């Protein structure tokens, strides 16, 4: 019962800021609304007993990506109070694609049949995740590491002074 109430509270915490994000013309406020909804997702992970996931969500999305996004906005152009204006193009294909995506997501969510509110069976999640990464999922792990290294080198290259 409590779990349900909490779930709906956090679900509202995800959905309401996202709706605000779509409506508002103030791009910075939109970014912060996005941050709030990401925190709500972290809370849902906690309800699903995936604490490590929740912490990673906070660290990478709310602490990293949103900050990067806001930095991008701040360093480019101050849009002021008039907000951002974008025109509407390709309305019908857009609606169709998003509807198809929605159907796909709902379909797969109901197919997966997520276990909800189970008792915690393991207390050592971090250790398990670490062991799994270095045994069963080693290739994925190494590929991600390689990708991040490339991104780092790329960033250093872009930041390099181009006067020589």
């Amino acid at each position: 019962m409590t779990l349900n109430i909490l779930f709906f509270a956090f679900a509202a915490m995800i959905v309401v800021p996202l709706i605000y994000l779509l409506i508002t013309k103030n791009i910075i406020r939109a970014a912060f609304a996005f941050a709030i909804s990401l925190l709500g997702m972290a809370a849902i992970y906690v309800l699903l007993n995936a604490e490590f996931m929740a912490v990673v969500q906070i660290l990478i999305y709310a602490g990293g990506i949103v900050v990067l996004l806001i930095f991008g906005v701040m360093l480019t152009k101050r849009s002021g109070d008039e907000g951002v204006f974008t025109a509407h193009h390709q309305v019908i294909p857009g609606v169709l694609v998003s509807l198809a995506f929605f159907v796909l997501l709902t379909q797969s969510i109901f197919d997966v049949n997520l276990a909800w509110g189970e008792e915690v069976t393991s207390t050592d999640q971090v250790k398990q995740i670490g062991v799994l990464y270095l045994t069963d999922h080693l290739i994925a792990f190494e590929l991600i590491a390689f990708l991040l290294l490339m991104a780092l080198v790329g960033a250093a290259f872009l930041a390099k002074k181009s006067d020589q």
Partner: protein
Amino acid sequence: MITFLVFLPFLLGFVVVGVYGERKIAGFVQNRLGPMEVGPKGIVQTVADLLKMLQKEDLRPKAVDQLLFLAAPIIVFGAIFTGYAVLPLTEGVSGSVIDAGLFFLLSVVSLDVLGILLAGWGSNNKYALFGAMRSVAQIVSYEIPLGLSVLCVVMVAQTLDLQEMVTQQGIYATEESFLFGIKGLKINATGGFLSWNIFSMPLLIIAFIIFFISGLAESNRVPFDLPESESELIGGYHTEYSGFRWGLFMLSEYGMMLLVSFLAAILFFGGWYSPFPNIGSFELAEMTNGPVWGVIWLFGKATFFIFLQIMARWTYPRLRVDQLMSLSWKYLTPVAILLLFLIGIWKIWVIS
């Protein structure tokens, strides 16, 4: 629960005493008296300042983005105070039991960046915006050496739970601990300062120095106070704030200092264990350890690190922006990665 019952009142009380202590130490360093007028030796000066601050008018400049402007101090303080949730208090009294305790603390505390950005942007003031940008750039880059130095400790302790991490560093430990990481010098029964992480793994001394420097930078203290530098930016991201809202920023700065000090005590200096070892049959460690002693030792150690931070503030000049970045990226981060590597080798081949 202990977070609200113990750490919140302690933090509030600490700010009052801390500001007084800071001004007195500043006076000592600069060879003057510091506050002397209010009460004997100026002891109630901060209380008077606090009362003055609370009575101030709540100014809200017309051009600010009201919502962001008002939310910012609450987000900054909320993010930092959430970090206290996982701190253990004493023997048998742990904080919130989270599997990824230390990791949670670091990630939640990094959210204060959002609040600072809100304050800087919402103020609609170029100084505030520059302050916020500097602050965020600084906090984000110093999080890397901070995280790596903490990771060194995690590798030694093999856990992310702060309570367990402390328990390992003394006489109640269930694992074996060795002096200077040398097999043969077993010190489980001796305890005291000899079994603290910093002594059981000497490489952690360097990790502690990196942790302390990045901790100073994280809490925007001198020599890393570029975001607030009064002479250039008139106070940085809290330029437009006054009264209680400004007080919240002040409170979060001191909260961050205190959190870093608690973490330093817990990770490197044995948390709530007493520094006295058992000497033969004279069981000093048994005598000075216990639930009540634990609180005293933990808070005492934290206060000592606060003192170190204040001394650093009044003895070193501010760094330039380029020096700040090169310190983080060219010195602290590579050294921390090297340390991580060495400690990994030590852990795999020397100890086990």
